[in-house]
């Protein structure tokens, strides 16, 4: 593209934006609202996913050991478990520690469990985390079959339900996002088509004078980029402001919902929305224009 042409395209784009001010504002508003809704849904989904990930990664297998094992046997079993591919970490909890933990759960410190029961009734155990939480029940099954393991506990029944629930939450939220995205594309494409329709005579005239398709397209593309990025910028500012005030109000309240707040993660979301807005602007323009260029 020659510089002279580029200057002309930019001039034309800006002129037409200011000339069709009402339509430009309508397009930017449509874009901003669509992307705002999409962005809010996206943040909600990411947070839900984050929350579910935490729930899932909190899952652990408790493997109780036979009381008759020697120290070396206990060590060997630990190495065996650590060597399993599906295992992420193994922590040994000696029976004294287990008792202490249990003791802590009783509010009354004077109530000495050991004295009441007579002797420590608890076995040594391992707290095992799986590399992939989805594998917990299989892994637990496998570990329970190992010699020296007396019993395995991983929240049988509850875990399976949890995964059932998180699976459906994920499916539904992805479906929701896809629907919203489709709605946004449709809304934006319609607005752009309206804007181009208003100028179909000019496009027709240019075609008959002998303008190439690209010569006609460029100013519209620039407009699409300007409107798309402006719309997404507005929605991102609103979203960022809303989200940060949500975080700060939740931090001061009693609720504890683990919202994501790392700037890097949020910035990725915002960048993605910005790119989506600009891309939608250009793609919407391209598709809507082609019909009118066919002269």
């Amino acid at each position: 593209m020659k510089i002279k042409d580029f200057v002309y395209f930019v001039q034309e784009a800006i002129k037409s934006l200011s000339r069709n001010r009402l339509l430009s504002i309508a397009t930017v508003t449509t874009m901003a609202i669509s992307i705002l809704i999409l962005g809010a849904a996206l943040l909600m989904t990411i947070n839900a996913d984050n929350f579910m990930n935490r729930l899932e990664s909190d899952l652990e297998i408790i493997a109780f050991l036979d009381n008759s094992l020697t120290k070396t046997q206990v060590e060997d079993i630990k190495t065996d478990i650590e060597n399993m591919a599906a295992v992420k970490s193994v922590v040994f909890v000696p029976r004294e520690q287990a008792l202490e933990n249990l003791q802590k759960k009783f509010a009354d410190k004077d109530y000495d469990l050991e004295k009441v029961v007579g002797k420590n009734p608890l076995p040594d155990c391992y707290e095992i985390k799986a590399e992939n939480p989805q594998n917990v029940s299989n892994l637990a099954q496998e570990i329970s079959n190992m010699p020296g393991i007396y019993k395995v506990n991983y929240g049988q029944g509850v875990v399976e339900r949890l995964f059932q629930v998180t699976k459906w939450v994920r499916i539904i939220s992805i479906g929701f996002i896809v629907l919203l995205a489709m709605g946004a594309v449709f809304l934006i494409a319609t607005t752009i088509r309206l804007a181009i329709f208003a100028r179909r005579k000019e496009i027709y005239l240019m075609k008959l004078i002998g303008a190439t398709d690209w010569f006609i397209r460029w100013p519209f593309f620039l407009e699409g980029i300007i409107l798309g990025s402006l719309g997404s910028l507005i929605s991102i500012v609103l979203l960022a402001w809303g989200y940060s005030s949500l975080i700060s109000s939740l931090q001061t309240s009693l609720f504890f919902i683990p919202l994501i707040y790392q700037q890097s993660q949020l910035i990725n979301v915002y960048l993605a929305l910005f790119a989506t807005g600009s891309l939608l602007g250009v793609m919407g323009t391209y598709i809507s224009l082609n019909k009118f260029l066919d002269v």
Partner: protein
Amino acid sequence: MLVQFYNVSKVYPNGVKALNDISIKIERGEFIFLMGPSGAGKSTLIKMLFREEVPTRGQIFVANRSIVRMKRSEVPQLRRNMGIVFQDFKLLENKTVAENIAFAMKVVGSKTKDIRPRVNEVIQMVGLKGKEKSFPGQLSGGEQQRVGIARAIVNRPLLLIADEPSGNLDMDTAHGIMDLLYDINYKGTTVVMATHAWDLVRTARKRVVTLEAGRISSDTYTPEFI
């Protein structure tokens, strides 16, 4: 030979047969009136010249190139050799007279420094000196059509195509427009003009092609010419 039609037929997608086996040749420098009743196919024939419509059957050559087989990307170059004048002028309302004319030069990528002198030249030629900065809405119909003609000739086309250029104008104004077209033709541009107005054609000494129901019913010269 500038334009050749060989056995051209046109059936629109809705089944209307607009042209039926048309063959015609147009020499460089000619002035041709295209006449015929409403619905005879005049506009269809005109649109085929600049390839807004393509024939269903037959061949069309412009400057010895088939424009039927022409690639889509070659169409702009074809149109740059033509100027088109519309019955409804098709001026851009938000551009001045000078800008409307300059627009046609910008669209085909003319050098910036060439635009102003050439625009002034054609404004002079069509008799609109002093109206450069007016907007179309501030001009009479006849003046608007002069802008349309100026825009059509500013890129020095080989062929000027006009579909009822005076259809929206009164007789006196129409005669003024005709004089302008004759003048352009005299300077070497081939002109094809569709019209209903026999009064305009009768007094001219030009070739008249008459269409009826999609066929050429006569191709003669007006009496005064003979």
